[in-house]
């Protein structure tokens, strides 16, 4: 069997493309969780982003409005979560699960009118550079702006958390909301902002799926990616760079197992389909084994409600 270098380049490109929604959603959720809020509604926010993006695109015809609209839809639905968990002090886990169920349901309802409508072509950047360097340039160039944004995001997120004052405040709130509040930090404001930011990123991840990755609307098209994104955050021990690695491994195995199935490798299909999940978790657990570092990067107040009694 001959596998030419062009084919490998194609595989790498498709791996990276499939990692994009995971990176976006994980990095958003990471910020939310670093502030101590556990939002299990990632899948729901993504699917809402997916249908909103597609609907805005079909109705307005503008890709720009569609992307912004998807992000705003993510913000809107996460506002519900924020209001429930931060203002009404509901349980994070139950509220997050409800959000996912709600998102899947409402997206299917809205989506009925959009099934079967073809998507639009999303403009790509650096198309002209695609032939400059053999092998590398088809991988590096000719992608959408969301693609480039996604691969820069983990580094920005890392910088934001480690080097900026606001990032420090987010980590402080996640570590001990009581102390933060006693220091005069507005815990609710910080947590609201982080939840809304997470919503925006999940909305964007959804829009990428329905507008760029597979430009059409299919019911339940996120297909569990939101849960994978959640798992990536935890198994990467809240480290954005490790999220990037995890997303690449997951995306990679998903793509490779498709090709293996296509080549007729004699392994049960079910095993191949399960492979990305298993390997991603194993790899992330292994690279995150330092229990000291885990303790330092785990938000101590994750999932705990905070309220001030005066």
């Amino acid at each position, binding site marked *: 069997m001959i596998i030419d270098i062009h084919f490998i380049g194609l595989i790498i490109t498709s791996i990276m493309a499939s990692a994009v929604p995971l990176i976006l959603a994980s990095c958003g959720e990471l910020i939310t969780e670093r502030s101590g809020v556990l939002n299990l509604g990632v899948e729901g926010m993504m699917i809402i982003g997916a249908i909103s993006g597609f609907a805005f695109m079909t109705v307005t015809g503008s890709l720009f409005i569609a992307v912004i609209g998807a992000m705003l839809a993510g913000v809107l639905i996460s506002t519900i979560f924020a209001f429930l968990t931060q203002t009404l002090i509901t349980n994070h886990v139950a509220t997050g699960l409800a959000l996912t169920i709600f998102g899947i349901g409402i997206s299917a309802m809205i989506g009925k009118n959009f099934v079967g409508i073809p998507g639009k072509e999303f403009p790509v950047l650096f198309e002209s550079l695609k032939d400059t360097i053999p092998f590398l340039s088809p991988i590096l160039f000719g992608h959408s702006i969301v693609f480039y944004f996604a691969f820069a995001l983990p580094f920005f997120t890392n910088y934001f958390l480690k080097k900026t*004052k606001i990032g*420090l405040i987010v980590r*402080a709130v996640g570590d*001990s909301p009581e*102390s933060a509040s006693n220091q005069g930090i507005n815990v609710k404001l910080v947590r609201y902002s982080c939840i809304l930011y997470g919503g925006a990123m999940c909305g964007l991840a959804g829009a990428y799926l329905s507008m760029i990755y597979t430009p059409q609307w299919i019911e339940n098209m996120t297909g569990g990616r939101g849960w994978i994104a959640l798992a990536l955050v935890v198994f990467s021990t809240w480290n954005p760079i490790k999220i990037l690695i995890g997303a690449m491994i997951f995306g990679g195995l998903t793509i490779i197992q498709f090709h293996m199935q296509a080549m007729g490798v004699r392994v049960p299909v079910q095993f191949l389909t399960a492979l990305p999940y298993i390997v991603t978790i194993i790899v992330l657990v292994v690279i995150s084994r330092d229990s000291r570092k885990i*303790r330092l*990067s785990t938000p101590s107040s994750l999932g705990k409600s905070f309220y001030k009694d005066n």
Partner: protein
Amino acid sequence: MNTNLKISNVTKIYPGCVANDNVSLEFNSGKIYALLGENGAGKSTLVKILSGVIIPDEGKIYLNENNLKLNSPLDAKKNDIGMVFQHFNLFETLSVFENLIIDSDEQRKSLREKIDSIMKKYNFSIDLDIPVLNLSAGQKQKVEIIRCLIRNPKVLIMDEPTSVLTEQETSELFLSLKKFSEEGILIIYITHKLKEVMQLCDEVAVMRRGKLVSVSQIKNENIESLANKMVGQNLKTIKKRKTKTSSDQLINITNLNFISEDPFETNLNNINFSVNRGECLGIAGISGNGQSELFQVLSGEILSDKNSIEYNKNYIGDLNPQERREYLMAFSPEDRLEQAAIPQMAIFENVALNNFKSSNFFNNGLINENKIKEHSKKIISDFNVNTDNIELKSQFLSGGNLQKLIIGRELITAPDLLICFNPTWGLDVGAINYIHETLIKINEQNKSIILISTDTDELLKLSDKISVIHKGKLSNIMNADEVTSEKLGILMGGGN
């Protein structure tokens, strides 16, 4: 410059409890003020009002004649009121420097210089770039103090600052506080420890049940007079009768080791000791030196080598807590609400948790509620637990009442050995007295106690023998009457 802080007619009412009842006080810089009272007397509420954490229902605060509106901790900071809380307000996973820069508007570099100069001035030495969770309690407190000093406060409030400190750290703290006071910072020192008030302060205000009871000069007071004011009645002083200890060995620990996989736990290194019947062995040490691990190994929460613990001629190192209870051991862990009792469960349910075979609390897998309730009522009356409602959730009991309940529960079996870990931590004088009396009674009945405690006074009062744990190693076992608190302090710090 002179600072004058005035609290005028402050009242704060919680449902079912008046935390501050029309309190008025005045403070002037140059002096160190003590605010003295038992737990629940309202002193923490009062200082939380001063620091903007709690907003009073009525009353005003004046700083140098200006009426302060303290609606948030930020307002207190802006008005130069600094506060070091009893429970540290630090972010454990952030570095020391990150903890300090978070509420400062200064640039990294100038802040670092400022911190360095503060540390130099007051002889603090703390690595600014390690996470706070690696610091000792004394160092954490220094970080809190530095955080206040960065803002050049006019008022510095210390809420029970010595509850986590060693003798040495305490005297260092007192030196610093005196220095701050000389530099014109008004210091308000909240405590229920009378000795410290006598040592450190110039003036003392005593609170009881939300009311201000007295304001007086320290030179006109002594420990007894203050204690009586604080409790509101005459306290009897208790003393252990020196019994001649038997030579009948009850428990013998040989070559006990514990290696933890958690880097934040302390390893235990070759622990050897024995306790005779009727004896109390005190184990002193600064918290975090392996006490909690030692307690867990002794209670069976952590299993060890079978032969390392010999109890009543049985080897029990590999038995779990329940099995050890069958051998008439009893345990009172440090954390009353997390380890000893389940906060959301009723008193009688918590009593039943300590179930053992002979208790008859359970018949054929069913709960014998009458039996449990009957027994719970007996504990409540025998051990002076201040409630008559055994259906009350245990989280609503005060620390003292909960501790009495736990000790009472543990003594159901008439155990031969009681292992306690900081039994009087955070309790008020009355409750401490009661617990101490109970422990002495146990010894008088020829039963034994292992008392792991960070309170040296308590150890000196109750123990027959004392050992010190430092970094997971036990010192020689000394007779209690040959030991002084200074000597313990040195051993606790790792000296010889």
